[in-house]
């Protein structure tokens, strides 16, 4: 039975949030209206997390502008800055913020900083096996489970489920750790926000993709791991998280991610190299306007991520208006 959950996983990929009522786009976000007709080539190189999203946006955008050719390449967030510098891409989708060293390289080439447009939100969930009775964790506990440096100040190392208050057969079982591969945006985000910038334990099993983390946990009764909420399956359970011991724990849902009550949510960016002395390239501008429109944000939901609010869209549009 268990191994069929892998099949279930494939079926469940891209399904939205666990449990919560369906997420809808903020009615304050205006539908897309063409400013002008554009044509030409648009290249996007960057995040693999956003690969699907970019492709869906590109397909829908081309319905409005059939003369535009869009190529999307998603090998990893780290490929975006290099492509922007080389000029091989106009859009750099990234699932993390650009590192200072990457910004340095762009400034060295162009003389100005890149512009980061927030296009969607992603929520990271901490998963355990579906049979695990645990319901919630605090961030310091999570840190003590995953990290050898325990920067968030939990007094001792956590290695068995019993130390988290589970009884019965769980009490003496060691915790089996799953994580994303080093250098993925998810890995870096988790390190900074759940481990306080500290180091992972050497025993974390690094999986080459978000889906394989969830797969691993659904096959490992004593496993725990982190991955995007879009990858949830019936074989795993997403834990509620509290910022500090004793605080209220929140499940990963849209409202609590927006209000930051749930601590692990991150923006998904598209970086563009926009010379502040010049008007925005019309093709790039049209595309980003589409992404920040109601249609664009509906695609975000369809792909398993969370849409921006009206106010956030306003702020992002303001970055383009010059």
């Amino acid at each position, binding site marked *: 039975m268990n191994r069929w959950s892998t099949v279930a996983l494939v079926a469940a990929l891209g399904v939205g949030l666990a449990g919560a009522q369906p997420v809808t786009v903020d009615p304050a976000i205006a539908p897309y209206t063409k400013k002008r007709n554009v044509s030409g080539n648009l290249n996007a190189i960057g995040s693999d997390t956003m690969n699907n999203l970019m492709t869906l946006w590109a397909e829908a955008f081309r319905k409005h502008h059939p003369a535009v050719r869009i190529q999307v390449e998603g090998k990893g967030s780290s490929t975006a800055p290099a492509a922007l510098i080389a000029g091989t891409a106009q859009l750099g989708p990234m699932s993390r913020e650009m590192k200072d060293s990457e910004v340095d390289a762009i400034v060295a080439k162009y003389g100005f900083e890149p512009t980061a447009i927030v296009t969607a939100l992603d929520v990271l969930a901490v998963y355990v096996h579906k049979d695990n009775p645990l319901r919630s964790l605090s961030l310091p506990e999570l840190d003590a489970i995953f990290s050898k440096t325990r920067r968030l100040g939990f007094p001792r190392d956590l290695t068995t489920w019993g130390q988290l208050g589970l009884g019965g057969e769980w009490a003496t079982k060691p915790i089996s750790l799953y994580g994303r591969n080093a250098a993925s945006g998810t890995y870096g985000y988790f390190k900074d926000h759940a481990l306080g910038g500290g180091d992972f334990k050497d*025993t974390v099993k690094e999986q080459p993709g978000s889906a394989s983390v969830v797969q691993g946990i659904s096959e490992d009764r004593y496993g725990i791991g982190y991955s995007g909420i879009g990858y949830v399956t019936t074989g795993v359970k997403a834990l509620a998280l509290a910022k500090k011991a004793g605080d209220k724990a929140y499940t990963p849902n849209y409202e609590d991610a927006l209000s930051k009550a749930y601590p692990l949510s991150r923006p998904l960016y598209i970086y563009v190299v926009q010379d502040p002395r010049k008007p925005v390239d019309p093709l790039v501008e049209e595309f980003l306007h589409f992404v920040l429109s109601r249609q664009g944000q509906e695609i975000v939901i369809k792909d398993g991520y969370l849409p921006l609010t009206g106010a956030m869209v306003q702020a992002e549009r303001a970055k383009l208006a010059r």
Partner: protein
Amino acid sequence: MEAARQRARRRELWAAGVIRTAAFLVLGFTFLLFAYLLLEVIPLLRPARLGSPVQVDGGGGLLQFPAELPNSLWVVGGNGTVRVLPQGDEVQLPEARPPLRAAVADRWGRLLAVVDGQGLQLYRLTLRPTFVGQERRLHLKVSRLGAASEEAVRLLAVGGGAEPLVVGTKGGSTFLWQLRQGTLHPFPLGVGEARVAVVADAGDRVWLSLRRELAVYHAETQELLARAPLSAEATALTLLLGDVTCLVGDASGQVAAFGFYQEGGTYLVERFASFSGPGPVLALAPSPRNKAFAVLRPGLLQVAYLTSRKVLAERSIAPEVRLALAFAPRGERLQAVSPSGFVHHVAVDLGHPEITLRTLFGKVRYEGYRDSSWTWQSTGGSNAFEGKFSLVPLLFGSIKGAFYAMLFSAPLGLLAALYTSQFAPAGFRRWVKPVVELLAGVPSVVVGFVAALVLAPWVAQHLGTVLLALVVLPLVLVGTGWFCELQPRPWQLRLQRRWELPLTLALVALALVLTALVGPWLERQLFPQGLLELLHRAWGVAYDQRNALVTGFALGFAVLPVIFTLAEEALSNVPESLTNAALSLGASRARAAWTVVVPAATPGLVGALLLGFGRAVGETMIVLMASGNAPVLSLSPFSGMRTMAACIAVELPEAAYGETLYRVLLLVALLLFAFTLTTNLVGHHISRSLRARFGVSP
């Protein structure tokens, strides 16, 4: 006839030419690959460089700090202004009452505290490069955060980013000023007059030194968290990026690195590294990009790196330069100031400072670690992360994976080869060889997938049975042989002809079924709380589902065909005349095989094992999926590993071109390449020497 022969000859020549060209092409490509890897790795050796100092007139002032544009800086003047140089515009500090008596900035030049006629003033500075026409200029914004009316304050430090703090001394004791609703409130720290201090970026901790002691205070409660003795009085104090390591420079010329640790609710400050140099330490400055820092001594400027414990570069500087050492915001330039107001800019190029032989292969005590260790953890989420590039866990992982793979595949492969070449009926060999070679054609990603998602959970649930089978199966096989040996000779011969193989297979199947039935029962009887739990409790062995046992088995699957094919070939190449001679002298088949064939074929068998080992070390997909990729240093069959090949596969796609991680991963690739190339060459050479011995054309 003659024409046909000539045509055949021409065709032969042509074919030989093509083959030779192809061989040279392969050789050429291998060489090119090697050269490419080498060229990408060599820049790791690029030394750090400090440019020669460029001197500009800073026009006096209380404080100078480097800014983002080339050779730009801002200067706090005694008249209560901040001037941006070289562009020359000036901003008045709001509500400051000149003349200013002192000014101090945080490590990154974002907060500024000044002492004016009234007391203490705190400002936040934002400097952003903008375009004015085609020219890039710095736009300076100053906002006033708060003030306190104090007299005769000596400023020591300001910092804390979002929750700013000021540290200073007054009337012989040390105070902390916290910002609450626009007012700075003083809180005594309950010690004497500190000489130097630094505030953590998170605004949670204050480090200071007085007399021969280093102390850490909690900012909110002013509670002393920990302290440590110093060997000499501190002259400079700073925190490296990330606020984990505090550097203390003293008059004896030593720079010591102290770490802050918490253990079971108590705190501890401990020295874990030191750097020495000529002359007293005048100033220290941390890099905003990594774990590098600058040290200013009389007439000498040095740049050192924490992880490698190395002074990367040094440059002599005018001896009167004694002040205001700081890195520019992007870490590419250092600035120091002489009392006469002359500013010295020094360009900094660090190279790849975290890579030395010691950090690659030796034990290092990293920031926040209580012990030195071999650790591989290459990436973090921000610049404050200290890269850990020890290759030892990767080398260990590769060898561990290959070892467990050989544990499965070597006995199986060699014995199967021996059986096929010496004992099996003639027809058997004809179909078993292609089948085993077909096995080699199974895509390794499929093997890895099955191992990780089907085999690994299954083994975890039935560990007792699996271990029992590992003991029972060899015993059954040996036992069967022994039983046959005991039978009278005619019976033996009859058995050998017809029933040997079916009988053995049947017995193995029977043993497996029995093990599967008895195993769980036996496990319940022997280990009532479960075997995994016993392992954990009695020996502290954590059973990981993705472990060396599972990986070794899956990897063995990939290696088996290599070993089998080559060993079988080696054994079959032993001339039949040798075996026949032994048999005619009355030796049994087994005896002939053991004493004549195996010794004669030994080099070939060794070659087969070496090539199998090389294949196991280089295999990527199976290990990537089944091993868990955890860079642990444990020999246990129940823990995972991270091999060189899997590490490259996992990390290279996300490594930015030219950065340290990228080059280190290519160094790993180079090591892997050299290793497999060597084992393959040696393996082939040994096999060939065997063929030559028996006059078989290679």
